[in-house]
Protein backbone atom coordinates (compact mmCIF):
# COMPACT_ATOMS: atom_id res chain seq x y z
CA UNK A 1 0.00 0.00 0.00
CA UNK A 2 1.53 3.30 -1.04
CA UNK A 3 1.20 6.48 0.99
CA UNK A 4 -0.51 9.64 -0.26
CA UNK A 5 0.20 12.95 1.44
CA UNK A 6 -1.92 15.99 0.61
CA UNK A 7 -0.94 19.63 1.18
CA UNK A 8 -3.12 22.63 0.33
CA UNK A 9 -1.59 26.10 0.33
CA UNK A 10 -4.26 28.77 0.41
CA UNK A 11 -4.44 32.53 0.61
CA UNK A 12 -4.84 35.34 -1.86
CA UNK A 13 -3.36 35.82 -5.31
CA UNK A 14 0.17 37.24 -5.30
CA UNK A 15 1.28 35.64 -2.02
CA UNK A 16 3.52 33.22 -3.91
CA UNK A 17 1.73 30.02 -2.96
CA UNK A 18 1.97 28.47 -6.42
CA UNK A 19 5.76 28.82 -6.25
CA UNK A 20 5.79 27.14 -2.82
CA UNK A 21 3.77 24.27 -4.28
CA UNK A 22 6.15 23.89 -7.20
CA UNK A 23 9.21 23.88 -4.90
CA UNK A 24 7.66 21.26 -2.60
CA UNK A 25 6.62 19.03 -5.49
CA UNK A 26 10.01 19.37 -7.14
CA UNK A 27 11.86 18.57 -3.90
CA UNK A 28 9.84 15.35 -3.59
CA UNK A 29 9.84 14.27 -7.23
CA UNK A 30 13.27 15.32 -8.47
CA UNK A 31 15.44 15.08 -5.35
CA UNK A 32 13.68 12.37 -3.32
CA UNK A 33 12.65 10.07 -6.16
CA UNK A 34 9.00 10.14 -5.07
CA UNK A 35 6.00 11.04 -7.21
CA UNK A 36 4.43 14.46 -6.80
CA UNK A 37 1.87 16.68 -8.50
CA UNK A 38 1.21 20.36 -8.10
CA UNK A 39 -2.03 21.93 -9.26
CA UNK A 40 -3.56 25.31 -8.75
CA UNK A 41 -6.78 27.22 -8.64
CA UNK A 42 -6.96 30.97 -8.80
CA UNK A 43 -9.10 33.79 -10.07
CA UNK A 44 -8.49 36.06 -13.05
CA UNK A 45 -6.86 38.77 -10.90
CA UNK A 46 -3.05 39.14 -10.82
CA UNK A 47 -3.28 40.20 -7.16
CA UNK A 48 -5.96 39.42 -4.59
CA UNK A 49 -8.83 36.97 -4.94
CA UNK A 50 -8.77 33.48 -3.50
CA UNK A 51 -5.78 31.40 -4.58
CA UNK A 52 -4.81 27.85 -3.77
CA UNK A 53 -2.05 25.51 -4.74
CA UNK A 54 -2.15 21.80 -4.00
CA UNK A 55 0.66 19.30 -3.71
CA UNK A 56 0.17 15.53 -3.60
CA UNK A 57 3.19 13.42 -2.67
CA UNK A 58 3.20 9.63 -2.96
CA UNK A 59 5.54 6.69 -3.41
CA UNK A 60 3.02 5.25 -5.88
CA UNK A 61 1.17 6.59 -8.92
CA UNK A 62 -0.89 9.71 -8.32
CA UNK A 63 -4.16 9.30 -10.15
CA UNK A 64 -6.36 12.16 -8.91
CA UNK A 65 -4.07 15.19 -8.60
CA UNK A 66 -6.35 17.33 -6.43
CA UNK A 67 -6.57 17.34 -2.62
CA UNK A 68 -9.60 15.61 -1.09
CA UNK A 69 -8.41 14.56 2.36
CA UNK A 70 -5.81 17.11 3.39
CA UNK A 71 -2.89 16.38 5.74
CA UNK A 72 -1.62 19.96 5.93
CA UNK A 73 -3.69 23.05 5.23
CA UNK A 74 -1.87 26.38 5.13
CA UNK A 75 -4.20 29.40 5.30
CA UNK A 76 -2.81 32.90 4.94
CA UNK A 77 -6.20 34.62 4.88
CA UNK A 78 -9.38 34.20 6.93
CA UNK A 79 -11.39 33.67 3.74
CA UNK A 80 -9.14 30.79 2.64
CA UNK A 81 -9.26 29.22 6.11
CA UNK A 82 -13.06 29.30 6.24
CA UNK A 83 -13.43 28.05 2.67
CA UNK A 84 -11.04 25.10 2.80
CA UNK A 85 -11.16 23.79 6.37
CA UNK A 86 -13.84 21.22 5.50
CA UNK A 87 -11.39 19.15 3.41
CA UNK A 88 -8.84 18.84 6.27
CA UNK A 89 -8.28 15.31 7.57
CA UNK A 90 -9.39 15.02 11.23
CA UNK A 91 -5.82 14.08 12.16
CA UNK A 92 -4.41 16.80 9.93
CA UNK A 93 -2.66 20.06 10.71
CA UNK A 94 -3.91 23.58 10.11
CA UNK A 95 -1.17 26.19 9.81
CA UNK A 96 -2.38 29.80 9.88
CA UNK A 97 -0.92 33.26 9.94
CA UNK A 98 -1.88 34.20 13.49
CA UNK A 99 -2.52 37.84 12.63
CA UNK A 100 -4.53 37.38 9.46
CA UNK A 101 -6.56 34.38 10.59
CA UNK A 102 -8.17 35.46 13.86
CA UNK A 103 -11.14 33.09 13.91
CA UNK A 104 -9.69 29.60 13.98
CA UNK A 105 -12.27 26.89 13.23
CA UNK A 106 -12.77 24.22 15.88
CA UNK A 107 -12.00 20.57 15.29
CA UNK A 108 -9.83 17.60 16.23
CA UNK A 109 -7.05 18.73 13.94
CA UNK A 110 -3.83 20.30 15.22
CA UNK A 111 -3.67 24.10 14.89
CA UNK A 112 -0.35 25.93 14.48
CA UNK A 113 -0.62 29.71 14.74
CA UNK A 114 2.48 31.66 13.74
CA UNK A 115 2.84 35.34 12.69
CA UNK A 116 4.28 34.35 9.30
CA UNK A 117 3.95 37.62 7.38
CA UNK A 118 5.08 39.76 10.35
CA UNK A 119 8.16 37.54 10.75
CA UNK A 120 9.03 38.09 7.12
CA UNK A 121 8.89 41.87 7.54
CA UNK A 122 10.58 42.04 10.95
CA UNK A 123 13.21 39.30 10.80
CA UNK A 124 14.09 39.44 7.09
CA UNK A 125 12.97 42.92 6.13
CA UNK A 126 10.90 41.65 3.19
CA UNK A 127 7.26 40.62 3.57
CA UNK A 128 7.46 39.07 0.10
CA UNK A 129 9.39 36.04 1.43
CA UNK A 130 6.53 35.09 3.76
CA UNK A 131 5.70 32.28 1.35
CA UNK A 132 9.13 30.68 1.83
CA UNK A 133 8.87 31.06 5.62
CA UNK A 134 5.58 29.16 5.35
CA UNK A 135 7.40 26.54 3.26
CA UNK A 136 10.00 26.13 6.04
CA UNK A 137 7.24 25.61 8.60
CA UNK A 138 5.59 22.98 6.37
CA UNK A 139 8.91 21.17 5.78
CA UNK A 140 9.54 20.93 9.53
CA UNK A 141 5.99 19.96 10.49
CA UNK A 142 5.38 17.44 7.69
CA UNK A 143 8.78 15.73 7.58
CA UNK A 144 7.75 14.57 4.11
CA UNK A 145 10.84 15.88 2.29
CA UNK A 146 14.37 16.55 3.51
CA UNK A 147 15.64 20.08 4.13
CA UNK A 148 18.46 19.47 1.67
CA UNK A 149 16.06 18.56 -1.15
CA UNK A 150 14.00 21.69 -0.51
CA UNK A 151 17.15 23.85 -0.53
CA UNK A 152 18.11 22.40 -3.93
CA UNK A 153 14.59 22.95 -5.27
CA UNK A 154 14.57 26.56 -4.05
CA UNK A 155 17.87 27.30 -5.74
CA UNK A 156 16.54 25.83 -8.99
CA UNK A 157 13.21 27.68 -8.90
CA UNK A 158 13.57 31.18 -7.43
CA UNK A 159 14.74 34.17 -9.54
CA UNK A 160 18.53 34.51 -9.85
CA UNK A 161 20.00 36.76 -7.16
CA UNK A 162 17.27 35.95 -4.61
CA UNK A 163 18.63 32.53 -3.57
CA UNK A 164 20.24 33.80 -0.36
CA UNK A 165 17.23 35.66 1.05
CA UNK A 166 14.96 32.74 0.15
CA UNK A 167 17.24 30.21 1.88
CA UNK A 168 17.31 32.49 4.94
CA UNK A 169 13.52 32.64 4.87
CA UNK A 170 13.41 28.84 4.70
CA UNK A 171 15.69 28.60 7.76
CA UNK A 172 13.52 31.15 9.56
CA UNK A 173 10.44 29.03 8.87
CA UNK A 174 12.18 25.93 10.26
CA UNK A 175 13.13 27.92 13.40
CA UNK A 176 9.60 29.23 13.91
CA UNK A 177 8.22 25.69 13.61
CA UNK A 178 10.82 24.35 16.07
CA UNK A 179 9.97 27.11 18.55
CA UNK A 180 6.30 26.23 18.24
CA UNK A 181 6.98 22.51 18.69
CA UNK A 182 9.13 23.16 21.79
CA UNK A 183 6.40 25.28 23.34
CA UNK A 184 3.59 22.88 22.53
CA UNK A 185 5.10 19.44 23.10
Amino acid at each position, binding site marked *: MSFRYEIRLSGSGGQGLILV*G*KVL*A*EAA*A*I*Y*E*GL*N*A*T*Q*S*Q*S*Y*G*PEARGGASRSEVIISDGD*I*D*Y*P*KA*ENIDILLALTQEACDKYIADLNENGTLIVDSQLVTHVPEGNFRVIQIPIIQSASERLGKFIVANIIALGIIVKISNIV*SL*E*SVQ*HAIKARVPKGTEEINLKALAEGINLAEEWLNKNS
Partner: protein
Amino acid sequence: MSEPKKNIKMIQGNTACAEAAIAAGCTFFAGYPITPSTEIAEVLSYRLPMVGGNFIQMEDEIASMGAIIGASLGGAKAMTATSGPGFSLKQENLGFAAMAEIPCVVVNVQRGGPSTGLPTHVAQADVMQARWGTHGDHPIIALCPTSVSDTYRLTLRAFNLSEKYRTPVILLTDELIGHLTEKIELPEPGSIEIINRQKPTVSPEKYLPYESTASLVPPMANFGEGYRYHVTGLVHDETGFPTNDSDKAALMLARLNDKIEKNRDDIVEVEEIHIDYEMETLIIAYGSSARSANRAMITAREEGHKVGLLVLKTIWPFPEKEIQQAMRNAKKIIVPELNLGQIAHEVEWATNRRIPIIKLNRINGESIKPSEIHKVITQG
Protein backbone atom coordinates in the same frame (compact mmCIF):
# COMPACT_ATOMS: atom_id res chain seq x y z
CA MET B 1 18.50 12.88 -1.26
CA SER B 2 19.07 11.16 -4.58
CA GLU B 3 21.00 12.56 -7.53
CA PRO B 4 18.44 13.81 -10.08
CA LYS B 5 18.45 12.32 -13.60
CA LYS B 6 18.91 14.91 -16.34
CA ASN B 7 15.96 13.88 -18.52
CA ILE B 8 13.49 13.76 -15.62
CA LYS B 9 11.69 17.08 -15.29
CA MET B 10 8.88 18.57 -13.24
CA ILE B 11 6.95 20.60 -15.78
CA GLN B 12 3.35 21.55 -16.45
CA GLY B 13 1.21 20.12 -19.24
CA ASN B 14 1.44 23.31 -21.30
CA THR B 15 5.25 23.23 -21.19
CA ALA B 16 5.23 19.55 -22.19
CA CYS B 17 3.04 20.48 -25.17
CA ALA B 18 5.50 23.18 -26.27
CA GLU B 19 8.54 20.91 -25.85
CA ALA B 20 6.85 18.07 -27.74
CA ALA B 21 6.02 20.44 -30.60
CA ILE B 22 9.73 21.20 -30.94
CA ALA B 23 10.59 17.49 -30.74
CA ALA B 24 8.02 16.82 -33.49
CA GLY B 25 9.78 19.28 -35.79
CA CYS B 26 7.42 22.25 -35.38
CA THR B 27 9.16 25.39 -36.67
CA PHE B 28 6.28 27.85 -36.65
CA PHE B 29 3.87 29.02 -33.96
CA ALA B 30 1.37 31.84 -34.32
CA GLY B 31 -0.95 32.67 -31.48
CA TYR B 32 -2.82 35.15 -29.39
CA PRO B 33 -2.25 34.42 -25.70
CA ILE B 34 -5.28 33.34 -23.68
CA THR B 35 -5.63 31.70 -20.26
CA PRO B 36 -5.17 28.81 -19.62
CA SER B 37 -3.11 28.15 -22.76
CA THR B 38 -0.68 31.10 -22.48
CA GLU B 39 2.33 29.09 -21.25
CA ILE B 40 2.43 27.21 -24.58
CA ALA B 41 2.97 30.51 -26.43
CA GLU B 42 5.32 31.77 -23.72
CA VAL B 43 7.61 28.73 -23.89
CA LEU B 44 7.61 28.62 -27.69
CA SER B 45 8.39 32.36 -27.90
CA TYR B 46 11.91 31.60 -26.64
CA ARG B 47 12.29 27.91 -27.55
CA LEU B 48 11.46 28.20 -31.27
CA PRO B 49 14.19 30.77 -32.04
CA MET B 50 16.68 28.40 -30.34
CA VAL B 51 15.96 25.75 -32.99
CA GLY B 52 15.76 28.14 -35.94
CA GLY B 53 11.96 28.36 -35.86
CA ASN B 54 9.62 31.33 -35.80
CA PHE B 55 7.20 32.58 -33.17
CA ILE B 56 4.73 35.30 -33.97
CA GLN B 57 2.09 36.89 -31.79
CA MET B 58 -0.75 37.84 -34.14
CA GLU B 59 -3.45 40.48 -33.69
CA ASP B 60 -6.09 37.87 -32.83
CA GLU B 61 -6.97 34.18 -32.97
CA ILE B 62 -8.42 34.36 -36.49
CA ALA B 63 -5.15 35.70 -37.89
CA SER B 64 -3.15 33.15 -35.86
CA MET B 65 -5.05 30.32 -37.50
CA GLY B 66 -4.51 31.92 -40.91
CA ALA B 67 -0.80 32.29 -40.22
CA ILE B 68 -0.27 28.62 -39.37
CA ILE B 69 -2.15 27.61 -42.52
CA GLY B 70 0.19 29.79 -44.57
CA ALA B 71 3.28 28.46 -42.78
CA SER B 72 2.17 24.89 -43.38
CA LEU B 73 1.64 25.55 -47.10
CA GLY B 74 5.21 26.82 -47.11
CA GLY B 75 6.36 23.48 -45.73
CA ALA B 76 6.61 24.17 -41.99
CA LYS B 77 5.08 22.08 -39.25
CA ALA B 78 2.89 24.69 -37.59
CA MET B 79 0.86 25.02 -34.42
CA THR B 80 -1.39 27.45 -32.58
CA ALA B 81 -2.77 27.25 -29.03
CA THR B 82 -5.87 28.78 -27.52
CA SER B 83 -8.85 28.30 -25.24
CA GLY B 84 -12.67 28.57 -25.48
CA PRO B 85 -13.31 32.04 -26.94
CA GLY B 86 -10.21 31.81 -29.15
CA PHE B 87 -11.21 28.34 -30.32
CA SER B 88 -14.54 29.81 -31.45
CA LEU B 89 -12.70 32.40 -33.53
CA LYS B 90 -10.52 29.76 -35.17
CA GLN B 91 -13.42 27.72 -36.49
CA GLU B 92 -13.74 29.33 -39.93
CA ASN B 93 -10.07 28.87 -40.79
CA LEU B 94 -10.09 25.43 -39.20
CA GLY B 95 -12.71 24.44 -41.77
CA PHE B 96 -10.52 25.93 -44.48
CA ALA B 97 -7.57 23.81 -43.32
CA ALA B 98 -9.76 20.68 -43.37
CA MET B 99 -11.13 21.51 -46.83
CA ALA B 100 -7.79 22.50 -48.38
CA GLU B 101 -6.07 19.58 -46.61
CA ILE B 102 -3.44 21.60 -44.80
CA PRO B 103 -1.68 19.83 -41.92
CA CYS B 104 -1.55 21.82 -38.67
CA VAL B 105 -2.03 21.35 -34.93
CA VAL B 106 -4.53 23.42 -32.94
CA VAL B 107 -4.31 23.16 -29.15
CA ASN B 108 -7.38 23.98 -27.09
CA VAL B 109 -6.75 24.07 -23.35
CA GLN B 110 -10.38 23.96 -22.29
CA ARG B 111 -11.73 26.39 -19.71
CA GLY B 112 -15.23 27.09 -18.44
CA GLY B 113 -17.69 28.50 -20.98
CA PRO B 114 -19.84 29.58 -22.72
CA SER B 115 -18.40 32.87 -23.97
CA THR B 116 -15.53 34.14 -21.80
CA GLY B 117 -16.95 31.93 -19.02
CA LEU B 118 -14.55 30.91 -16.26
CA PRO B 119 -11.13 31.86 -17.65
CA THR B 120 -8.95 30.19 -15.00
CA HIS B 121 -11.06 27.10 -14.35
CA VAL B 122 -11.27 23.65 -15.88
CA ALA B 123 -13.97 22.38 -18.25
CA GLN B 124 -14.43 19.79 -21.00
CA ALA B 125 -17.29 21.50 -22.76
CA ASP B 126 -15.66 22.00 -26.17
CA VAL B 127 -15.74 18.36 -27.26
CA MET B 128 -18.68 18.90 -29.60
CA GLN B 129 -17.21 22.17 -30.82
CA ALA B 130 -14.03 20.28 -31.69
CA ARG B 131 -16.13 17.95 -33.83
CA TRP B 132 -18.68 20.30 -35.35
CA GLY B 133 -17.52 23.84 -34.57
CA THR B 134 -16.81 24.60 -38.19
CA HIS B 135 -19.61 24.14 -40.72
CA GLY B 136 -20.12 21.42 -43.26
CA ASP B 137 -19.30 17.71 -43.28
CA HIS B 138 -15.61 17.68 -42.60
CA PRO B 139 -13.11 15.23 -41.12
CA ILE B 140 -11.38 16.05 -37.84
CA ILE B 141 -9.04 14.37 -35.39
CA ALA B 142 -9.04 15.32 -31.70
CA LEU B 143 -6.84 13.86 -28.95
CA CYS B 144 -7.32 14.21 -25.16
CA PRO B 145 -4.30 13.78 -22.84
CA THR B 146 -4.65 12.68 -19.19
CA SER B 147 -1.26 13.69 -17.78
CA VAL B 148 1.84 15.77 -18.43
CA SER B 149 3.69 12.90 -20.11
CA ASP B 150 0.55 12.03 -22.06
CA THR B 151 0.40 15.67 -23.25
CA TYR B 152 3.94 15.28 -24.59
CA ARG B 153 3.16 11.98 -26.30
CA LEU B 154 -0.15 13.10 -27.81
CA THR B 155 1.28 16.42 -29.06
CA LEU B 156 3.86 14.38 -30.99
CA ARG B 157 1.06 12.15 -32.24
CA ALA B 158 -1.03 15.18 -33.26
CA PHE B 159 1.81 16.38 -35.51
CA ASN B 160 2.35 12.90 -36.93
CA LEU B 161 -1.33 12.36 -37.71
CA SER B 162 -1.68 15.82 -39.26
CA GLU B 163 1.28 15.16 -41.56
CA LYS B 164 0.22 11.62 -42.39
CA TYR B 165 -3.37 12.54 -43.27
CA ARG B 166 -2.92 16.16 -44.45
CA THR B 167 -5.45 17.40 -41.96
CA PRO B 168 -5.78 19.72 -38.96
CA VAL B 169 -5.51 17.86 -35.63
CA ILE B 170 -6.87 19.25 -32.37
CA LEU B 171 -5.09 18.58 -29.10
CA LEU B 172 -8.09 18.93 -26.80
CA THR B 173 -6.62 19.24 -23.34
CA ASP B 174 -8.01 21.05 -20.29
CA GLU B 175 -6.95 23.57 -17.64
CA LEU B 176 -6.25 20.92 -15.01
CA ILE B 177 -3.82 18.98 -17.21
CA GLY B 178 -2.40 22.14 -18.85
CA HIS B 179 -1.52 23.67 -15.48
CA LEU B 180 -0.68 20.43 -13.68
CA THR B 181 2.99 20.09 -12.76
CA GLU B 182 4.22 16.50 -12.51
CA LYS B 183 7.13 14.30 -13.36
CA ILE B 184 8.00 13.48 -16.94
CA GLU B 185 10.84 11.46 -18.37
CA LEU B 186 11.67 13.15 -21.66
CA PRO B 187 12.45 10.67 -24.45
CA GLU B 188 15.84 10.64 -26.16
CA PRO B 189 15.56 12.64 -29.43
CA GLY B 190 16.52 9.61 -31.55
CA SER B 191 13.83 7.42 -30.01
CA ILE B 192 10.90 9.54 -31.21
CA GLU B 193 8.89 8.47 -34.26
CA ILE B 194 8.50 11.44 -36.60
CA ILE B 195 6.19 11.38 -39.62
CA ASN B 196 6.60 13.97 -42.38
CA ARG B 197 4.11 14.74 -45.12
CA GLN B 198 4.54 12.92 -48.40
CA LYS B 199 6.06 15.17 -51.08
CA PRO B 200 5.30 14.87 -54.83
CA THR B 201 7.59 12.67 -56.89
CA VAL B 202 6.31 13.99 -60.25
CA SER B 203 7.48 17.16 -62.01
CA PRO B 204 5.61 20.43 -61.30
CA GLU B 205 3.74 20.27 -64.67
CA LYS B 206 2.29 16.87 -63.81
CA TYR B 207 1.47 17.63 -60.16
CA LEU B 208 -2.17 17.33 -59.06
CA PRO B 209 -2.40 18.68 -55.51
CA TYR B 210 -5.74 16.99 -54.81
CA GLU B 211 -5.30 13.80 -56.79
CA SER B 212 -7.50 10.82 -55.91
CA THR B 213 -4.69 8.50 -54.87
CA ALA B 214 -5.18 4.99 -53.52
CA SER B 215 -3.97 6.13 -50.10
CA LEU B 216 -6.66 8.88 -50.15
CA VAL B 217 -3.94 11.35 -49.08
CA PRO B 218 -2.39 13.18 -52.06
CA PRO B 219 1.28 14.24 -51.79
CA MET B 220 1.72 17.88 -50.77
CA ALA B 221 4.18 20.30 -52.39
CA ASN B 222 5.70 23.20 -50.48
CA PHE B 223 4.95 26.64 -51.86
CA GLY B 224 8.09 28.22 -53.19
CA GLU B 225 9.56 25.02 -54.61
CA GLY B 226 8.20 25.43 -58.12
CA TYR B 227 4.94 23.54 -57.67
CA ARG B 228 2.33 26.21 -58.39
CA TYR B 229 -1.22 25.34 -57.45
CA HIS B 230 -4.47 26.83 -56.30
CA VAL B 231 -5.70 26.58 -52.70
CA THR B 232 -9.34 27.32 -51.95
CA GLY B 233 -12.13 26.66 -49.48
CA LEU B 234 -14.47 26.14 -52.43
CA VAL B 235 -15.12 22.62 -53.61
CA HIS B 236 -12.32 21.93 -56.04
CA ASP B 237 -11.16 19.30 -58.51
CA GLU B 238 -7.82 17.48 -58.53
CA THR B 239 -6.01 20.62 -59.76
CA GLY B 240 -7.24 22.66 -56.80
CA PHE B 241 -9.40 25.00 -58.92
CA PRO B 242 -13.04 25.50 -57.91
CA THR B 243 -15.72 23.40 -59.54
CA ASN B 244 -19.52 23.21 -59.43
CA ASP B 245 -19.57 19.82 -61.13
CA SER B 246 -21.64 17.60 -58.83
CA ASP B 247 -19.75 14.43 -59.80
CA LYS B 248 -16.42 16.04 -59.00
CA ALA B 249 -17.83 17.53 -55.76
CA ALA B 250 -19.07 14.11 -54.67
CA LEU B 251 -15.70 12.52 -55.45
CA MET B 252 -13.68 15.17 -53.64
CA LEU B 253 -15.87 15.33 -50.52
CA ALA B 254 -16.04 11.54 -50.28
CA ARG B 255 -12.25 11.27 -50.35
CA LEU B 256 -11.90 14.11 -47.83
CA ASN B 257 -14.06 12.31 -45.27
CA ASP B 258 -12.95 8.77 -46.19
CA LYS B 259 -9.28 9.48 -45.57
CA ILE B 260 -10.06 9.78 -41.85
CA GLU B 261 -13.00 7.34 -41.57
CA LYS B 262 -11.25 4.50 -43.46
CA ASN B 263 -8.11 4.98 -41.39
CA ARG B 264 -9.94 5.29 -38.07
CA ASP B 265 -8.31 2.10 -36.70
CA ASP B 266 -4.91 3.75 -37.12
CA ILE B 267 -6.12 7.00 -35.52
CA VAL B 268 -8.33 5.83 -32.65
CA GLU B 269 -6.50 5.13 -29.40
CA VAL B 270 -8.07 4.02 -26.13
CA GLU B 271 -6.62 2.64 -22.90
CA GLU B 272 -8.37 -0.28 -21.19
CA ILE B 273 -7.85 -0.60 -17.44
CA HIS B 274 -9.27 -3.66 -15.63
CA ILE B 275 -11.69 -4.42 -18.43
CA ASP B 276 -12.72 -8.08 -18.36
CA TYR B 277 -15.76 -10.34 -18.56
CA GLU B 278 -16.31 -10.15 -14.78
CA MET B 279 -16.75 -6.37 -15.00
CA GLU B 280 -20.18 -5.11 -13.91
CA THR B 281 -19.55 -1.36 -14.21
CA LEU B 282 -17.70 0.35 -17.02
CA ILE B 283 -16.49 3.93 -16.64
CA ILE B 284 -15.77 5.84 -19.86
CA ALA B 285 -13.68 8.96 -19.33
CA TYR B 286 -11.18 11.26 -21.04
CA GLY B 287 -8.83 14.11 -20.18
CA SER B 288 -8.56 15.16 -16.54
CA SER B 289 -11.81 13.39 -15.61
CA ALA B 290 -10.08 10.08 -16.35
CA ARG B 291 -7.79 10.82 -13.37
CA SER B 292 -10.83 11.13 -11.06
CA ALA B 293 -12.31 7.99 -12.60
CA ASN B 294 -9.10 5.99 -12.14
CA ARG B 295 -8.93 6.79 -8.43
CA ALA B 296 -12.62 5.99 -7.95
CA MET B 297 -12.12 2.68 -9.76
CA ILE B 298 -9.10 1.69 -7.64
CA THR B 299 -10.96 2.44 -4.38
CA ALA B 300 -14.07 0.57 -5.52
CA ARG B 301 -12.05 -2.45 -6.67
CA GLU B 302 -10.32 -2.64 -3.28
CA GLU B 303 -13.80 -2.98 -1.80
CA GLY B 304 -14.62 -5.81 -4.21
CA HIS B 305 -16.62 -3.94 -6.85
CA LYS B 306 -16.12 -5.22 -10.39
CA VAL B 307 -15.40 -2.04 -12.26
CA GLY B 308 -13.25 -1.18 -15.28
CA LEU B 309 -12.20 2.02 -17.01
CA LEU B 310 -11.98 2.88 -20.69
CA VAL B 311 -9.94 6.03 -21.30
CA LEU B 312 -10.58 7.73 -24.65
CA LYS B 313 -7.28 9.19 -25.87
CA THR B 314 -8.72 9.81 -29.34
CA ILE B 315 -12.11 11.43 -29.01
CA TRP B 316 -12.67 12.18 -32.73
CA PRO B 317 -13.13 10.05 -34.76
CA PHE B 318 -15.30 8.59 -32.01
CA PRO B 319 -14.20 5.20 -30.59
CA GLU B 320 -17.63 3.55 -30.92
CA LYS B 321 -16.16 0.18 -31.92
CA GLU B 322 -13.76 0.20 -28.95
CA ILE B 323 -16.64 1.08 -26.60
CA GLN B 324 -18.77 -1.78 -27.97
CA GLN B 325 -15.84 -4.17 -27.39
CA ALA B 326 -15.08 -2.86 -23.91
CA MET B 327 -18.69 -3.21 -22.70
CA ARG B 328 -18.39 -7.02 -22.36
CA ASN B 329 -21.09 -8.02 -19.82
CA ALA B 330 -21.25 -4.67 -18.04
CA LYS B 331 -24.59 -3.81 -16.46
CA LYS B 332 -24.08 -0.07 -16.47
CA ILE B 333 -21.81 2.61 -17.88
CA ILE B 334 -20.77 5.78 -16.04
CA VAL B 335 -19.59 8.78 -18.06
CA PRO B 336 -18.05 11.50 -15.86
CA GLU B 337 -17.27 14.69 -17.76
CA LEU B 338 -16.95 18.43 -17.17
CA ASN B 339 -19.91 19.36 -19.38
CA LEU B 340 -23.60 18.46 -19.43
CA GLY B 341 -23.18 15.09 -21.14
CA GLN B 342 -21.65 15.76 -24.56
CA ILE B 343 -19.77 12.46 -24.78
CA ALA B 344 -22.41 10.54 -22.80
CA HIS B 345 -24.79 11.16 -25.71
CA GLU B 346 -22.26 9.64 -28.11
CA VAL B 347 -21.90 6.66 -25.77
CA GLU B 348 -25.68 6.20 -25.76
CA TRP B 349 -25.59 6.13 -29.56
CA ALA B 350 -22.58 3.80 -29.71
CA THR B 351 -24.13 1.32 -27.28
CA ASN B 352 -27.66 1.65 -28.67
CA ARG B 353 -28.73 2.26 -25.02
CA ARG B 354 -28.60 -1.48 -24.33
CA ILE B 355 -27.59 -0.80 -20.71
CA PRO B 356 -28.09 2.29 -18.55
CA ILE B 357 -25.71 5.18 -19.19
CA ILE B 358 -25.24 7.24 -16.03
CA LYS B 359 -24.14 10.81 -16.65
CA LEU B 360 -21.98 12.49 -14.02
CA ASN B 361 -21.56 16.13 -14.92
CA ARG B 362 -20.09 19.26 -13.44
CA ILE B 363 -19.79 22.72 -15.00
CA ASN B 364 -18.82 24.96 -12.07
CA GLY B 365 -15.09 25.09 -12.82
CA GLU B 366 -14.08 22.36 -10.35
CA SER B 367 -13.04 18.83 -11.24
CA ILE B 368 -15.21 15.80 -10.47
CA LYS B 369 -14.16 14.26 -7.15
CA PRO B 370 -13.34 10.54 -7.13
CA SER B 371 -15.76 10.14 -4.20
CA GLU B 372 -18.62 11.32 -6.43
CA ILE B 373 -17.82 8.65 -9.04
CA HIS B 374 -17.29 6.07 -6.31
CA LYS B 375 -20.80 6.77 -5.02
CA VAL B 376 -22.30 6.10 -8.45
CA ILE B 377 -20.28 2.87 -8.81
CA THR B 378 -21.46 1.51 -5.48
CA GLN B 379 -25.00 2.87 -5.34
CA GLY B 380 -26.08 2.93 -8.95
